[in-house]
C-alpha cells in the first residue's frame, strides 16, 4: 500500500514537472492556452508550434532518458552487487561517448549509425572495466571496481577530447553534445527512446527476481537456481543498448543511473520487482528537473542538463561512498 502511494506521488511530481517544463523559461512567451492547444494538436500560433516541435519532445525525452538511465543503473548495481555502480562509473557512458565521437567526427566508420557506435563503445569499455576490476569474482572489492571504472572513464574522456581536436571543423557540434544536453531533441529521438525504455522494462522485469537473489551473493544465487552467466549477459547487453541509446540521443548524462536506484531503495526497500519501475520513475523525474534547472540557472542562456546532474550527483556519490566505506 505504501508502495502504491509512493508511485502515485512520483506520478504527480512527474506530471507537474512535465506541465511546467512545457512553458517554463522561454524567451518567447508561452501561455497556458498555447500549451493546451499544442497538446491537443490544434495549435496554430507560433507559441503552440514551439511547444509541439521543441518543448514537448524535449520533456518527453527527458522522462524517457531519465527512466532508462535509472533502470540501467539499477541493473548494473544488481549484478555487480555494488551500490556505487552506474553507467558512468563502469565506464559505459565514457565508452559510448568515445564510440560516437569517433564516427561522428568522421575519423573512422563514418557510415556507421551513431547509436550503434555508442553501443559498441560502451560494450568495449565495460568489458575492459570488468577485466581490470575482476568484477565478476566474489572477492572483488568495491574499491577495485570503482577504480577501474574511474580510470576507464578518464581514459575515454581524454581520447574523446583528442578525437574532437582532430576533427576541427565539426568540433563545436560534438563539444556541445559532449556536455550532455537535451536541446536538440526531435520526435524521432523520442520514438527511439520509447522503444528502448519499453525494452528496459521488459528486461528489468525478467531479471528482477534473479537480482533479488544476487543480493545474497553469487554462490547462494547459483544454489537457488539463478543462471549467472545468462543473467550477466542479459544485463550487459541490455545495459549497453540502454546507455548507448541515451548517449546517442542526448550525450553523456551522469549520475542519474547512480542516484535513481539508491533513492528508490530508500523509498521502497530492496525488492527489484518494485525497484525497476521505481528507479525508472525517479530517474525520469530527476532528469526532467535537471533539464528545467539547466534552462533556468542562466536564463536566457542554456546550460547542459549533464552539468546540472553532475553538480547534484557528485556530492551524492561522495556521501554514498562514505556511507558504504
Amino acid at each position, binding site marked *: 500500500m505504501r508502495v502504491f502511494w509512493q508511485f502515485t506521488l512520483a506520478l504527480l511530481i512527474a506530471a507537474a514537472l512535465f506541465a511546467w517544463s512545457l512553458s517554463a523559461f522561454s524567451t518567447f512567451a508561452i501561455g497556458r492556452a498555447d500549451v493546451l492547444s499544442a497538446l491537443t494538436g490544434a495549435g496554430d500560433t507560433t507559441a503552440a508550434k514551439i511547444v509541439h516541435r521543441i518543448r514537448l519532445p524535449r520533456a518527453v525525452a527527458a522522462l524517457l532518458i531519465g527512466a532508462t538511465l535509472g533502470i540501467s543503473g539499477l541493473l548494473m548495481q544488481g549484478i555487480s*552487487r555494488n551500490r556505487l555502480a552506474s553507467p558512468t562509473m563502469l565506464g559505459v557512458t565514457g565508452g559510448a561517448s568515445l564510440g560516437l565521437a569517433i564516427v561522428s567526427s568522421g575519423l573512422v566508420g563514418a557510415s556507421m549509425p551513431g547509436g550503434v557506435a555508442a553501443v559498441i563503445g560502451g560494450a568495449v569499455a565495460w568489458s575492459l572495466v570488468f577485466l581490470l576490476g575482476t568484477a565478476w569474482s566474489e572477492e572483488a572489492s568495491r574499491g577495485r571496481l570503482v577504480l577501474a571504472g574511474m580510470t576507464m572513464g578518464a581514459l575515454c574522456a581524454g581520447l574523446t577530447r583528442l578525437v574532437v581536436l582532430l576533427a576541427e571543423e565539426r568540433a563545436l557540434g560534438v563539444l556541445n553534445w559532449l556536455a550532455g544536453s537535451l536541446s536538440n531533441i526531435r520526435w524521432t529521438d523520442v520514438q527511439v527512446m520509447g522503444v528502448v525504455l519499453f525494452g528496459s522494462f521488459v528486461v528489468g*522485469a*525478467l531479471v*528482477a*527476481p534473479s537480482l*533479488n*537473489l544476487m*543480493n*545474497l*551473493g*553469487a*554462490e*547462494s544465487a*547459483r*544454489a*537457488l*537456481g*539463478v*543462471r549467472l552467466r545468462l543473467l550477466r549477459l542479459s544485463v550487459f547487453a541490455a545495459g549497453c543498448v540502454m546507455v548507448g541509446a541515451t548517449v546517442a540521443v542526448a550525450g553523456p548524462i551522469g549520475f542519474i543511473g547512480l542516484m535513481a536506484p539508491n533513492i528508490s*531503495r530508500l523509498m521502497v*526497500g*530492496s*525488492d527489484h*520487482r518494485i525497484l525497476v519501475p521505481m528507479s525508472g520513475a525517479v530517474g525520469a523525474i530527476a532528469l526532467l528537473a535537471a533539464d528545467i534547472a539547466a534552462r533556468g540557472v542562466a536564463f536566457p542562456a542554456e546550460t547542459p542538463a549533464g552539468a546540472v546532474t553532475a553538480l547534484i550527483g557528485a556530492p551524492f556519490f561522495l556521501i554514498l561512498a562514505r556511507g558504504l566505506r
Partner: protein
Amino acid sequence: MTHAIHVEGLTLGYDRKPVIADLTLSIPAARFTALIGPNGCGKSTLLKSVIRTMPPRAGRIDVMGQPLNAMSARALARQVSFLPQVLPVPEGITVRQLVGYGRSPHNNLWGRIRGTDRAKVDEVLARLDITDLAGRMVDGLSGGQRQRVWLAMVLAQNTDIVLLDEPTTFLDINHQVELLRLARDLVATGKTVVAVLHDLNQAFRYADHIVMLRNGGLSGCGSPDKMATTPMLREVFSIDACIHPDPECGRPMVIVRKP
C-alpha cells in the same frame, strides 16, 4: 542408487596449482556425511563444485545418478541446497524475506510467494526457533543469529541434498548441538546432509560417514569408527591423539596427547 553425489577424477583449482587433484569419492544417500580436514585443504572448493560455482578442470560430478552438466540450474536447485561458509550481509531485507528466497527454485519465474511457500517458511522459522526474528532486518543480526537465519533459508529450499559449509562456526554450544540434531532429523526423513565440521568429536558422534581431506586430495573415507584412528589424525592434522569411546554413547572421542 545409494550415492547421492559421486565425483570421479575431479580436479579443481583457482590458479595454476590445483587445490584438489584427481579426486574420486562417493557420498552415500540419506546419510549424514562430515567433511573434515585442515584449513585451506579444499573443503569449500569441493562443495562449490557441486553447486557449479567452481567449474572442474577435469573429471565429472554426478548428483543422484545424473551428470551435473546435464542438469538445468533450477533442476539442480531443487535437488541441492548450499549454505556458504562466508555469509554475505544482504542489505535492506527482512529475515522472512531472506528465508522466502529459499523457496525461489519452487515458485514461478516472477518469484511469487504462494500459500504453500509461506507455510514452509513458517515451518522452518519455527523449527529453528527464530519466529521472533522474522520481522527483523538481516543486517542487524548477530553472527550466530544470521547463521541460523541463513540455515533457515537453506532448509526452506527443501532439497534432498543439503550442503553446509561450516554451519556451526558462529553458534554457541547449545545451537551447535541443535544444528547437529537437526542434521540427524533431516537424515531421518531421507535427506542427504554433507557438512564441513571442525569439531572432530562432533563429527564422529553425529555423522554416519566421514570424508577426510588433506592438502591435495582425499586421505580416506568411511564410518567414524574406521576413520577415527591415531595414524589418520596424524596424517591429516599432524596431531598426536588417542581415541577413546565416549562415555555417553560409545562413539570415538579424540583426545590430544601431551606434547
